[in-house]
């Protein structure tokens, strides 16, 4: 039954005229593919190591979904959800998450002033705000990194450092080169406690 509904959904989308990104169509796809189980209702993740997607840059979501679909970024949990999506469906999903309100995570825990200060210094030295913008809300294929889960940020930065994560280019791999786990924890703490 579920399979049948999916097939009907795909037909409907294929029959629709090529319109610009549509957040409402995206919401239906998000429900069908069960994205909320990990990324949370309304795109705020309650699950350790799973990113929040509310207010994320649509071009960034589109790029990452295509890397998942093509098997270029290999995350086991994302293989099935990304399978067979068309470019238009991916852009609809991106439009849905991008339109959700982004806010500091409500349960992010107390701010450690010394750790945040150290993270701010490490960030400044790497000009993170040149691409991610001074409020860290991101632009185009550069992701929003404020309002994100601290554990996910630390995990991702370490993946870049260890060359386990690819992007559109090697910038993030280069920027994380040589940082210790403590450095990365400090940057993640600083970013997660931005307003």
């Amino acid at each position: 039954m579920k399979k049948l509904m999916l097939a009907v959904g795909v037909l409907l989308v294929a029959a629709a005229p090529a319109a610009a990104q549509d957040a409402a169509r995206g919401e239906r796809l998000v429900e069908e593919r069960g994205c909320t189980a990990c990324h949370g209702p309304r795109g705020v993740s309650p699950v350790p190591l799973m990113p929040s997607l509310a207010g994320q840059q649509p071009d960034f979501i589109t790029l990452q979904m295509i890397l998942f679909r093509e098997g270029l970024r290999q995350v086991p949990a994302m293989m099935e959800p990304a399978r067979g999506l068309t470019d238009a469906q991916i852009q609809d999903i991106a439009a849905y998450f991008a339109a959700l309100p982004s806010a500091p995570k409500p349960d992010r825990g107390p701010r450690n002033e010394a750790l945040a200060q150290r993270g701010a210094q490490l960030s400044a030295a790497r000009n993170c705000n040149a691409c991610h913008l001074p409020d860290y809300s991101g632009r185009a294929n550069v992701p929003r990194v404020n309002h994100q889960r601290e554990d996910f940020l630390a995990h991702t930065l370490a993946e870049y450092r260890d060359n386990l994560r690819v992007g559109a280019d090697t910038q993030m791999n280069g920027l994380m080169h040589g940082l210790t786990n403590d450095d990365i924890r400090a940057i993640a703490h600083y970013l997660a406690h931005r307003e």
Partner: protein
Amino acid sequence: MIRRHLLGLAAAAVAAPSLAFAQAPAAPPAWQQGRPAEMANSPLAPHAPRLTVTPPDRIPVSNIRVPDGFQVELWAHGLPGARVMVRGDNGTVFVGTRVIGRVYAVRDTGSERQVTTLLQGLPQPSGLAIRDGALYVSAIHRVLRVDNVEQNLANPQPVDMTAAFGLSDAAHHGWTHIQFGPDGRLYFSRGVPCNICETDGERYALIHSFNADGSDRRIEARGVRNSVGFDFHPRTGHLWFTNHGRDWAGNDNPSDTLHVNLRRGEHHGFPWCAGGFQDPAVPSQRLCSEFPPPAMVLGPHVAPIGTHFYRGSAFPEQYRNALFIANRGSWNRSRLAGFEVIVVREVEGGRLVQEPFMTGFRDDANQRFVGRPAGVLTMPDGSLLVSDEDNGAIYRVSYRR
């Protein structure tokens, strides 16, 4: 014992000066090396790649301008990231990409072009070459060969040649161009894994060639920072290549360049000299006068990719053996430069001149671009195909008397 031996080799490699540079914890990221303090807050960053299909009605064919007598049409679309193109004897055009990791096959049925994805999931398959019915694919360090490719478009069975070639897997500037030379050898470019650095000149900043099976490696050109396009002159057989100058040295320095490699192993100046620009960021100095000058300077940050001698006769006489260069366009410059196809021609006395050939991708008034030309290929009827990486499209340029 074997394990110990391998570890020993690895330790020795790390101790070599070139790699020590890359390993040093204090090293800035590759793309930021040589970035002066006064540019620390510059918002310039590489443009986001577009990996989604551009619908044909949004492909900017009507923006494109060519010289009088030429015309442009949309030849194929639905190939996100389209760059280099090669053509099989039976007429299939194969198209390489970078970020999206695909190799496409385009079949011309006469009335339309059918696009299929031949290979996917590869790390930046930017290099394609074809010989004796076999397609060679270069993706950073990986090398694949698909035998009888045009007979196996639906079910290609690549032979993995990666180990035989032994290329570096350093991703930065690792996207190659490959092509068979008139000597039957397979030529590869290999850029530097940095913006500006003193590097291991035996492994990086070069163009090298191999037998088709990966044996007998030979360095053809040295001191080449990052070449992503080269071709062999149809009459002389000389290797002509374009080269990208480094970033963060200012809006107008250094210039990207066109070179001819007259002697095997010739050194073209990197890291000390680029297009007459003596780089102040390199501690040990060698002078520009020590290196052969480029055949032509192309302009700062224009990013030449496709570098292709016209092999047809349908274009007017002055285009015989002319060199077409697709300048994919700048990111590290406050005003956009490039985003056009130029043609380099030989005039009286052997002097080279460059002229714009295909323009209109760059919108100077609004400082935006609507396309990024990347690959160039002569077709048997003398028309010219030009790929547009940003729109995943291929244009056909023809001449009508």
